[in-house]
């Protein structure tokens, strides 16, 4: 019963939202090229169904690849900052400065350096935009590890590597996944940014742009919905990983 209600409430909210959207477009009598209505979307999806499959895949793999590199590089940077004061003092201002640059401005820069390397550019952007939260969270997680945690193993003569694997790494996992949830959203933005701006791009961003070029508003809105769906999938993939690897950090319900 309560499960039914748990599903019914958000479902009703979505239906109400779509209804309102449909009503506003209908009441204002907006034509298709001004604002699409929900009922325009299924035909748009059907018409471009193979494009949607192909472009979603493009966007997905490049986002995941960029995020994967961000995880590796961010973790390594975080480890450097977490273990070495000198590395922290040296890297932190650089990272903060780099993070302060709005990443949209990097798109033309990257496009100029690596002309025509669309896949590479897209993955690179997804990486550049998303590694910062991971680096910071791992760095802070490691550097704020209470000395006692280290000492219970260090007093037995355990090596730094052992202490890292057995204590420091698992202990920072909750912070790491918190950052990863932010990063996955950022990487997704990075991918789309490049896809939309690149002249001969691929992916959902490029499909969006072709909709714009052709004045196909239903297609553009359909892409937005597809992006939302993909974003949700990516986000919940991280949530599932978090449950598996850092589920212990969730307080049992009292």
């Amino acid at each position, binding site marked *: 019963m309560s499960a039914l209600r748990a599903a019914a409430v958000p479902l009703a909210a979505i239906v109400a939202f779509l209804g309102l959207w449909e009503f506003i477009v209908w009441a204002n009598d907006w034509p298709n090229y001004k604002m699409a209505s929900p009922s325009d979307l299924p035909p748009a999806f059907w018409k471009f169904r193979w494009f949607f499959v192909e472009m979603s895949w493009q966007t997905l793999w490049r986002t995941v690849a960029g995020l994967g590199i961000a995880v590796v590089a961010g973790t390594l940077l975080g480890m450097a900052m977490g273990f070495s004061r000198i590395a922290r003092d040296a890297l932190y201002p650089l990272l903060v400065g780099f993070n302060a640059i709005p990443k949209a401005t990097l798109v033309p820069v990257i496009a100029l350096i690596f002309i025509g390397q669309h896949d590479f550019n897209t993955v690179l952007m997804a990486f550049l935009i998303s590694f910062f939260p991971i680096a910071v969270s791992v760095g802070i997680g490691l550097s704020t590890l*209470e000395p006692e945690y280290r*000492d219970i193993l260090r007093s037995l*003569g355990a090596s730094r590597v052992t202490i890292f694997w057995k204590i420091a790494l698992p202990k920072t996992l909750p912070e790491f996944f918190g950052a990863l949830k932010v990063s996955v959203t950022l990487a997704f933005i990075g991918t789309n940014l490049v896809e939309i701006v690149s002249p001969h791009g691929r992916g959902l961003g490029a499909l969006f742009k072709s909709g714009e070029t052709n004045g196909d508003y239903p297609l553009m809105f359909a892409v937005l919905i597809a992006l939302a769906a993909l974003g949700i999938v990516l986000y919940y993939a991280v949530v599932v990983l978090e449950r598996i690897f850092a589920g212990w950090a969730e307080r049992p319900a009292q």
Partner: protein
Amino acid sequence: MANLIEIKGVTHAYRTAAGPLPVLENLDIAVPEGEFCAVVGPSGCGKSTLTRLVAGLMRPDRGEVWLHGELVRSPRKTVGMAFQNPVMLEWRTVLQNVILPLEIVAPTMPRAEKEARASALLALVGLAGFEHKRPSELSGGMRQRASLCRAIVHRPDVLIMDEPFGALDAFTREDLWQTMHALRAKEPFTAVLITHDLREAVYLGDQVIVLSGRPATTQHIMRVNYPGPRLLDGLYTPECSEMLHVLRDQIRIAQGRDTTEEATT
């Protein structure tokens, strides 16, 4: 009986931004094998520093720390440590937490054997049935019990405890004292217990060492002659009152205030 722990003329200073901070000065402590040595002293006098030196986590500027006839230069597998913070690893069950030192010290020991050893210890401290719980499901006192099990699971010959009961309420603390005696009866180890509770020092210690204020030296050594078996009621006998009184006075001196001065104010 040979001294299992021998601290000879240990002097240590921390290098801080404001210059060297002398913490220990010419400290001498000797603990015979199997004995329980309680250390009290004003807060900030260098007690935790002392535990880190005995554990080999640091080396003193001058002087020597000997364990089992060997000069301590680095950490050794025959030491167990427990802190005020029980530092349970939340991603492991209670049993897996207790096993942790065995994974370092005896990596080849069969898993079943490790678990049997850990379960036996948990049962000894009254945690039978909690093996597969998460540490977050345990009370503070239970976590500290589990932490004690972890400190001795690899049968260390030296157990070093830094105010392990300091954060517990008075009744839980008394329970833990009794657990400590139960453990000592079953497991042979030589112990150093840092505490700020004088009753705890008398109830658990074979000797109580009072450190002076920073930089700490051995100010007073008291042999504990506990009246009868180690029962809590014994703490309320005249003998114990007398010992507590002496310790109280010594602490006052260590804090830089003498008794006469306080009596007049």
